[in-house]
């Protein structure tokens, strides 16, 4: 039968769509390919290094049994929070990476030397898979060095002017600022590829939150205000102590914090905004994929079937009605298309299923009204089976285009009526071989303690009345 084939087809495509939508996942990180060169050759049975695991702790891949270092120390590309210095040290020494990190943090908190050591490690240690460090590259970076040297005359002129105006303290800023600037230029030029990307994407935007001229103006304004606030705060802090006033240090700290907020606030805000927008976009995309899958499974399939059977109006109506029902139950009851029948657990859901099946199999309209509901029991299943039999009979024999089902569940009884306005028949004159249908309905109901009454009159249609006694629901 065409319809049955259509349904199978529809199911098959549904599965295809599901997998098609879930496939484009982010590729797994290529764990083994970024491992330290050489270690695979040394230890073919080495476990694959995980991203978060301190891979150096797995029995000292770089040490022989006496604990001597083997091979050069490299910054780790895998195990890293900032530049991979701790990960690299852990790999080289076999100490757990967490311990190394704790040591660095303690050193930093104790004397600040941790930061210095880390920065040196970053500059002097080559990244995994590279042979040169940032420092060695910077030393040989002719263009970068020329750029740095080119600033020197400007600096000298500045110093001379400052000296002439007796602004000696300004001059004392000059060299440190120059050195910091030169280092920043050289580091940025010679950082490895992904570190440069990190600097470009994450560090520089701290200073450029908006693009264009307006952004630059607001940046200048922010830095001016921030510098003023910060300077005032620092002054209050420095000058506060001799007077012994307790308020000043607090005010000073507040001003410094305010300065930081003014300068970096927009950047933080934009970070948070980006994060929220990204999360929203992801939720939206998931929702859209789900929607697309449903629409594809149901509406598009039906539209295709309708196009194919444009010359058969009855079939088209049948398809449209079934689709309408399915869509409606999805939109208003939240039941995804295709799952209604498979998961009927109550009388109402069972009748819903019955309606859909008879409508699509026989091309009639089945109008359903259900009052109350009950979970499926043997009795309720028998009632549903009998109702289906009666509905199919009406669809086959009555010639009516519409069949009405009405079910009402009361505390001690369920009634179900199947009615058509078709040709009807005289129950007394039905040949004995056709009475089987009525009998099977009656027998089915009798088995569960219910009854069936069939009323019909030639030309007036037929009504089957089914009743099923129920146990009152437990309170």
């Amino acid at each position: 039968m065409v319809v049955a084939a259509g349904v199978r087809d529809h199911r098959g495509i549904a599965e295809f769509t599901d997998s098609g939508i879930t496939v484009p996942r982010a590729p797994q990180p290529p764990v083994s390919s970024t491992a330290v060169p050489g270690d695979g050759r040394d230890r073919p049975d080495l476990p694959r290094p995980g991203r978060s695991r301190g891979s150096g702790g797995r029995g000292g891949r770089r040490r022989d049994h006496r604990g001597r270092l083997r091979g050069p120390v490299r910054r780790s590309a895998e195990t890293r929070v900032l530049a991979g210095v701790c990960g690299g040290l852990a790999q080289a020494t076999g100490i757990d990476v967490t311990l190394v990190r704790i040591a660095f943090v303690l050193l930093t908190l104790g004397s600040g030397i941790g930061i210095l050591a880390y920065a040196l490690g970053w500059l002097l240690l080559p990244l995994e898979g590279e042979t040169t460090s940032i420092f060695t590259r910077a030393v040989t970076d002719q263009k970068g060095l020329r750029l740095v040297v080119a600033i020197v005359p400007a600096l000298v002129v500045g110093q001379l002017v400052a000296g002439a105006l007796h602004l000696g303290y300004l001059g004392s800023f000059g060299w440190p600022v120059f050195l910091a600037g030169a280092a920043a230029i050289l580091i940025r030029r010679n950082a490895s590829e992904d570190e440069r990307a990190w600097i470009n994407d994450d560090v520089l935007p701290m200073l450029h939150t908006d693009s264009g001229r307006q952004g630059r103006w607001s940046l200048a304004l922010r830095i001016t205000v921030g510098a003023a606030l910060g300077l005032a705060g620092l002054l209050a802090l420095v000058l506060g102590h001799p007077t012994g006033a307790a308020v000043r240090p607090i005010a000073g700290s507040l001003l410094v914090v305010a300065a930081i907020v003014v300068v970096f606030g927009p950047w933080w805000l934009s970070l948070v905004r980006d994060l929220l927008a990204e999360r929203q976009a992801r939720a939206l995309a998931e929702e859209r994929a789900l929607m697309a899958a449903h629409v594809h499974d149901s509406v598009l399939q039906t539209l295709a079937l309708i196009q194919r059977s444009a010359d058969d109006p009855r079939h088209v109506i049948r398809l449209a009605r079934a689709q309408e029902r399915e869509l409606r139950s999805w939109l208003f009851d939240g039941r995804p298309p295709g799952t209604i029948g498979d998961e009927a657990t109550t009388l109402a859901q069972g009748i819903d299923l019955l309606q859909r099946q008879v409508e699509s199999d026989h091309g009639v309209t089945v109008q359903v009204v259900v009052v109350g509901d009950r979970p499926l029991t043997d009795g309720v299943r028998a009632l549903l089976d009998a109702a289906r039999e009666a509905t199919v009979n009406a669809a086959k024999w009555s010639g009516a285009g519409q069949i009405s089902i009405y079910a009402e569940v009361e505390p001690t009884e369920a009634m179900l009526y199947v009615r058509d306005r078709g040709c009807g028949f005289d129950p007394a004159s039905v040949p004995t071989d056709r009475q089987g249908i009525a009998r099977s309905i009656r027998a089915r109901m009798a088995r569960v303690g219910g009854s069936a009454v069939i009323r019909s009159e030639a030309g007036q249609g037929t009504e089957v009345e089914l009743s099923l006694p129920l146990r009152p629901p437990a309170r």
Partner: protein
Amino acid sequence: MTPGGRPRIFLVDDHAMFRAGVRAELGDAVEVVGEADEATAAVELIGERRPDVVLLDVHLPGGGGVAVLRGVMPHHPEVQFLALSVSDAPEDVIAVIRAGARGYVTKTISGAELLQAVERIGAGDAVFSPRLAGFVLDAFAGDGAGAGVVTGIDPELDQLSPREREVLRLIARGYTYKEVARDLGISAKTVESHVSSVLRKLQLSTRHELTRWATDRRLV
């Protein structure tokens, strides 16, 4: 109604295709005096044209069919409303009925049935589709035989009489008013008065189920 007996109707629906379809189906049997595709324009035009019956879509831009009922009913109580919807959700049905519509049919209704419904509404009667009858039985369930001891229920408004219940059941089973009358051995006029009485109870009752449905739609 015009002297010639043709009901003057007004269409409110945001789908032009549906309005055209209704015009075509009802044909010359009615006089379509106007159309609107959203609530505010509908309220204005209905006040101006004074149709006998408004065919009202439940889901409309500008506040839905309920907003139209609220805007027109206080000023023009003579205008009757028949609600039409693709939605089968009980809260939609109950909401428009409680706001004043005298009947509810789904958009899948046939042209002949729709014409009959329009004529009945125009004559001041109520139109209960099987589905609406089912909803009402559902909403008024639990106070039948043996379960009548529910406190706080006004039997005048909050309960259906056994006869009304019988009538509704037959309508829910797909019987026409005429068939209901024959089955119960009463006149068609009596059936209509039972249905109108049920409609009144539906609009005035404070039964928990009804108010719950109404609050779900933020109407109360």
